[in-house]
C-alpha cells in the first residue's frame, strides 16, 4: 500500500510551493485581476517554463522532463493553491495532453517541444453557447480542411497560439488543430467571473484546420482529454480549497467577538470541520484519479469523474464558507477570499459542470455493472 505522494514527489511539491510563494503572491494575481488589458502574468509564465513544469510530462525525446502524471498532479495542487494567473491548464492539461494522446509523430514533434520551451500557449475550444456541449449540433464546420464558425467562450483563447477545436466534418464530430495566428481568425476578449483567467470569443472564417486523431472520433477524444484534465484540475481545486480552509482558520483564530476568538464558537468550528471533511474526501478521490491517470487505467473515466465531482464540491463549499467566516471583510475586494471564490467557479466550469460529470459517472457505473 502506497497511497500517497512519494518522498521525491513531496519534495517536488514543497519546492513548487516555495517557488510559487516567492513568484506568485497575491500581488501577482491581483496584477492580472485589476488590469483588464492583461490576460495573464508573463513573468510568471516564463519562470514556470524555466522550471520545466510546462514539459513535466512531455517525453524527453520532445524536450520534456518525462516525469509521471503524479508529479504533474503535485505541481497542479500548488498552482491551484496560488491561484496562478497563467494559461497552464489550457496549454498543459488540454493541448499537450491532447497531442500526446492522439497526435501523429509529426504533430508531436512540431508542438510538444514548443510547449516545453514555453513558446506555445494552447487552448481547447468546444463551447458554442449556453448549455452542455453536444456532439450532434455543432455549428462549427470543417470543409476541405478549412474551419468556419464561432466558439464561445474559449479559456485563454485571446492569448493562445494554437487551439484544439471541436467541429463537425461530413456530419461527424472531429477535433482539429488550428493555428490561431493564421489569417481568418478573429478574437474578442470577454469579461468573465474570474478575470485572472481570460476568455475569448473565437471566430473562424475558412481557417486551415488539421485533424488530430481519427475522423469522426472528435467527441470521444475530447472526452478522453477531459478525463485527463479533470484529474489535474481536481488537484488545482484541492490546492485552492485547502488554502480557503487555511485562510478561514487563520482569520477565525485572530478575530474577536463577544470577548473571545470566533474560532472558539462551535458554529465556526463545525463549519471549518465540514470544510476539512470535504477536502479529505476530495483528496482521497483525487489520489485515486492520479493513480488511474498515471497508469492510464481502464478505471480512468470513473476515477476522473469522482475526482472532479468531489473537488468541485469541496472548493465551492470552502470558497463560499471562507467568505462567511471572514464576515464583512470577506466581501471586500481587498481580502483574497474572492480570488478563490472566482477560481472555484472557473475550475468547476472549464471542463464541464459537475452535473455533467455526475451523469458521466453514473452511466459509467451502469456500464460497469452491465458488463
Amino acid at each position, binding site marked *: *500500500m502506497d*497511497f*500517497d505522494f512519494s518522498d521525491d514527489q513531496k519534495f517536488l511539491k514543497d519546492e513548487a510551493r516555495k517557488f510559487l510563494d516567492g513568484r506568485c503572491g497575491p500581488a501577482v494575481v491581483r496584477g492580472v485581476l485589476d488590469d483588464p488589458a492583461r490576460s495573464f502574468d508573463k513573468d510568471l509564465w516564463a519562470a514556470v517554463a524555466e522550471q520545466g513544469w510546462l514539459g513535466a510530462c512531455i517525453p524527453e525525446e520532445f524536450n520534456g522532463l518525462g516525469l509521471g502524471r503524479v508529479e504533474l498532479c503535485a505541481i497542479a495542487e500548488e498552482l491551484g493553491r496560488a491561484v496562478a494567473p497563467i494559461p497552464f491548464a489550457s496549454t498543459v492539461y488540454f493541448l499537450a495532453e491532447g497531442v500526446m494522446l492522439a497526435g501523429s509523430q509529426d504533430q508531436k514533434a512540431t508542438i510538444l517541444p514548443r510547449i516545453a520551451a514555453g513558446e506555445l500557449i494552447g487552448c481547447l475550444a468546444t463551447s458554442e453557447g449556453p448549455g452542455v456541449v453536444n456532439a450532434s449540433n455543432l455549428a462549427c464546420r470543417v470543409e476541405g480542411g478549412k474551419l468556419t464558425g464561432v466558439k464561445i467562450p474559449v479559456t485563454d483563447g485571446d492569448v493562445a497560439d494554437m487551439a484544439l477545436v471541436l467541429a463537425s466534418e461530413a456530419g461527424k464530430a472531429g477535433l482539429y488543430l488550428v493555428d490561431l495566428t493564421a489569417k481568418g481568425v478573429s478574437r474578442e476578449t470577454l469579461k468573465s467571473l474570474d478575470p485572472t483567467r481570460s476568455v475569448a470569443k473565437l471566430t473562424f472564417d475558412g481557417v486551415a484546420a488539421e485533424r488530430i486523431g481519427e475522423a469522426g472520433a472528435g467527441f470521444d477524444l475530447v472526452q478522453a482529454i477531459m478525463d485527463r484534465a479533470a484529474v489535474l484540475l481536481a488537484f488545482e481545486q484541492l490546492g485552492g480549497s485547502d488554502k480557503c480552509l487555511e485562510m478561514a482558520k487563520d482569520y477565525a483564530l485572530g478575530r474577536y467577538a463577544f470577548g473571545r476568538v470566533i474560532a472558539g464558537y462551535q458554529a465556526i468550528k463545525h463549519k471549518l470541520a465540514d470544510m476539512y471533511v470535504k477536502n479529505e474526501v476530495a483528496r482521497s*478521490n483525487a489520489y485515486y484519479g492520479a493513480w488511474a491517470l498515471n497508469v492510464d487505467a481502464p478505471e480512468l473515466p470513473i476515477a476522473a469523474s469522482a475526482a472532479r465531482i468531489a473537488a468541485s464540491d469541496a472548493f465551492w463549499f470552502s470558497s463560499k464558507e471562507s467568505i462567511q467566516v471572514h464576515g464583512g471583510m470577506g466581501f471586500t475586494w481587498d481580502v483574497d477570499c474572492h480570488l478563490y471564490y472566482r477560481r472555484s467557479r472557473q475550475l468547476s466550469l472549464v471542463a464541464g459542470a459537475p452535473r455533467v460529470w455526475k451523469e458521466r459517472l453514473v452511466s459509467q457505473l451502469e456500464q460497469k455493472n452491465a458488463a
Partner: protein
Amino acid sequence: MDFNDSPEEAAYRDKARAWLAENAAAHRAQFGDVKANTPEHMAAAKAWQARKAGAGYACITWPAAIGGGGGTPIQSVIFGQEETKAGLSYGYFTIGLGMCVPTVMAFSNTETKQRFVSPAVKGEEIWCQLFSEPAGGSDVAALRTRAIKDGDEWVINGQKVWTTGAHYCDFGILLTRTDPDVPKHKGLTMFWIDMRDAAVECRPIHQMSGGREFNEVYFTDLRVKDSQRLGEVGDGWKVALVTLMNERLAVGGSSGPNYREIMGLARELTGATGPAIKDNAFREKLADWYVQSEGLKFTRFRTMTALSRGQTPGPESSIGKIIAANQMQELANTAVEMEDQYGILVDPAQAPAEAAFQQSLMWAPGLRIAGGTDEILKNIIAERVLGLPGDVRVDKDVAFKDMPTGR
C-alpha cells in the same frame, strides 16, 4: 501512488487468504448458518475467535507472548479486509479487545494482565465499557456513579447506560466518581469489575430500531477490591482517555446497503416517469454517494499507507463515521421513498432487499450518536486536527457537587 501491496504485504495477504479459505470452510461446516443475537451465534463467534487466536490472527499487533499475533498494524488491516471478504465478522469482541483490554494492559499489574489478556484474545471472556450515564452522554466526565472507599474495598452505587453487550459480557471497565469535592475531571477513578456479580443488574434497552444491543446497568452496593483499580485514585479521566483514543480506531465504518444496492433497487423499480434509475435527481444523489463512499475507502488506504510507513493515524479518522452515518440515513431514506407506498413495509419477506433499507433507516440515528455524536466528532476535528480552541467550559473550576444539573 499505488494501492497494490508491497511484496511483503502481498505475501502476508496470500497466507491469510489461504488460511481463511481452509478455516472458514471448516468453521462453516461446524456451525452452518446461525441467526444473529442467538446463543448459537455467540458460540460460533467464540469458536472463530479461538481458531484465529490459535493461528496468530487474533489481536495481530499484540505481542505473541500475551497471545497476540506479533504482527504489524498493516497486517492487521490486511487480515481484516480478507476476513470481511470471507464473509466472517463477529462484533462481540470489538469493544473488549479494541478498547477495554488495552486499557487494562496499560494500567494494571502483571498478575491482572496474565489473568485477563489471553482469555480475552481467545474469545473466552468478553468485555464491555461502562462510561455513559443518563446525566453524561457527550459530557462523559459528568458521570455520577459513586465509589466510596471502605477498608481495602470500594462500594459502588449508580447507573450506566448505552453499555453495548453488557448482558452477555463477563467483565467490564467502570468509570466512577470517587471525589465530588473537586472539579469533574479530577474526581474520577477507573476499576475493572465482574459483570456476573449479583450487585450488577443489566436491563437491555429496547431501541427505536427494534433491537436490544445496549443496556442500562445498575450497581447496588457493588463491592470491588482496591486491587481492581486501574490507575491512581482520581486519575480516572486519564485512563478513560486511553480507552476513548482506542475507540476511534475500533469503531469504524458502518455495514448496511450502500450505493451498489440502491443502484440495483433503482434498476428494478418504476419511478414517476420511467425506470427509477433514469431519474436525474436520483442519479445526482447516486453520484454523490459513490464519491463519498469511495472517498472514505481511499481515505482508509491513506491511513494504511501512513501505517505502512510506520506513522500513527491521527484523529483524521474521525471523518469516517460522520460521512458513513449520514450517508446511511440519506441513502436508506431515498430507497424507502423510491419504493413509494410499499416503502412502509418492514417485513423481510415482502420488502425489497429483505427490508435492509428499512433496517438501515431505523439504525442510522443511533449510528450518528454512538461512539461520539456528529457534533462531538466535528469538535474533535476542529480542535485536534485544525488546532482551534476548545469549547468554553463553565464547569471547569467548579467542584462536581456544586455543578448545576438538569435532568
